């Protein structure tokens, strides 16, 4: 159905756009090992995105392939959350984002391993191990930064406060998710909240940090294609060469 396709597309877009942001770290990380680690996480997400977009293009009946969906959709047609769109901040901001996103994805893929859509289930089963590694990577850095120097502690706390304005959107039961959950293909986002939050809380405590107060402002609208300002610029960059060669059939 259209809802199922849109649901899968949203999951794929989250992975695609976050992979795009993580790719920006390559050659800009605090140490060479981290260029590699963030590149690896980006590659895992890109792999998930390709599989999910391909599936979405089958489910929606348009037959669009992964590249058609990634490069030739307009901003309003993307369904990713604002969290993954945010411009690359400092390393603490990236780790705060990664901790929440990987904690969410860990719960998500665990649930989707039993999806009624065999392909989605397959993607989820393969990705489960990947995202659990991502989550552990974020956890290790949260500990180092939270329990490192005074400066790193403050920066990590600031980053946690910042990211809190972007997390509720991950767990919001929009119409499409509800429909996908009803059909047995998806899972209700709100069902993932407590597991993800518990993990984050435990890491935050271990890292001598505190969970932020509820944020004044909460990101919303991504699943309806209303994005944060950064998204248009991200797409301009990502799509420019492909859009510049509309008649190219192969790269």
């Amino acid at each position, binding site marked *: 159905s259209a809802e199922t396709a849109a649901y899968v597309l949203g999951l794929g877009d989250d992975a*695609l756009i976050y992979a*795009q942001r993580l*790719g*920006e770290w*390559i*050659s*800009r*990380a*605090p*140490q*060479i*090992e*981290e*260029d*590699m680690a963030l*590149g*690896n996480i*980006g*590659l895992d997400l*890109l*792999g998930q*995105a*390709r599989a999910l*977009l391909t599936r979405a293009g089958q489910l929606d009946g348009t037959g669009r392939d*992964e*590249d058609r969906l*990634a*490069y030739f959709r307009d901003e309003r047609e993307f369904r990713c959350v604002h969290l993954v769109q945010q411009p690359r901040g*400092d*390393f*603490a901001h990236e780790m705060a984002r990664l901790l929440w996103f990987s904690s969410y994805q860990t719960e998500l893929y665990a649930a989707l391993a039993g999806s009624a859509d065999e392909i989605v289930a397959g993607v989820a089963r393969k990705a489960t191990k990947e995202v659990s590694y991502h989550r552990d990577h974020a956890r290790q850095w949260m*500990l*180092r*930064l939270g*329990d*490192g*120097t005074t*400066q*790193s502690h403050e*920066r990590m706390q600031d980053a946690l406060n910042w990211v809190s304005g972007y997390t509720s959107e991950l767990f919001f039961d929009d119409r499409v998710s509800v429909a996908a959950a009803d059909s047995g293909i998806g899972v209700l986002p709100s069902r993932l909240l407590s597991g993800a939050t518990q993990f984050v809380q435990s890491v935050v405590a271990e890292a001598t940090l505190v969970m932020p107060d509820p944020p004044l402002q909460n990101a919303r609208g991504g699943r309806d294609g209303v994005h944060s300002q950064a998204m248009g610029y991200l797409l301009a*960059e*990502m799509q*420019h*060469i*492909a859009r510049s*060669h509309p*008649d*190219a*059939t*192969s*790269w």
Partner: protein
Amino acid sequence: RGPGGSFDALLAADQRIEPRDDMPDAYRQTLIRQIAQHAHSEIIGMQPEGNWISRAPSLRRKAILMAKVQDEAGHGLYLYSAAETLGVDRSELLDKLHAGKQRYSSIFNYPTATWADAGAIGWLVDGAAIMNQVPLCRCSYGPYARAMIRVCKEESFHQRQGFEILWTLARGTDRQRAMAQDAANRWWWPALMMFGPPDTGEAATGGHTEQSMAWGIKRFSNDELRQRFVDMTVPQADKLGLTLPDPDLRWNAERGHYDFGAIDWDEFWQVLKGDGPCNSQRIAHRVKAHEDGAWVREAANAYAAKQAARATA
């Protein structure tokens, strides 16, 4: 072989020198400089191709490119580790890179103007690098030789990927084909310069070739390697359907090699001395990453120290 051994005897027997072995200080310093320069080249070399990760025109190509640039980071790590066996440490070498006291390969001071450059770098730059590096797999210094074996395996994979990018473009639309040809035009001569100035003849500038050969660090002259590269690459260009930008390039049946035109060594020296298209940009990019990450590395050290203290407490 048994532990240790005399440096000259090991060299004469074409055996590997290992970190525990005595070695002349000049040998050690030459290796440190060369391995560091090699490692720096991998790290700086992430930038020109990294420039295309965000804009790669298909998701498959994006994934391949991310993996490739990541491999370069890995090569840098192997090589810094090899250098560390000689009694220096990575942070010291990086400081020298950032301060302009150690070099990286000049080829990375050229810009990547189009997507096709991701192909041309793989095909020509990695191709030339492999030609330089394969003999280093038999280098007299063990850790360097072993690092090179690993690096060469991945580089040849990258070289094929670059070739494949150009192959696809050359069979694509007119504009894609033109993009491939343009990239070949811009990268051909700089790739030939990667083998360094001539060892002999009028343009030769002395250099360390003779000593490095005696030490088993260098196995072939710059000009020999360059000729091999030309001989290998011209038929590949034919296969791609691309022209190389040298009107003097032709098969010489008598020599059994391709003849090629004169290299513009003025350009080579200009770029080497700092006036290339991207010299200051490459270093500034690298220094910014390093400085932006200083607080993170400090935090990691502080945490590790705390953990160690807790473990012994």
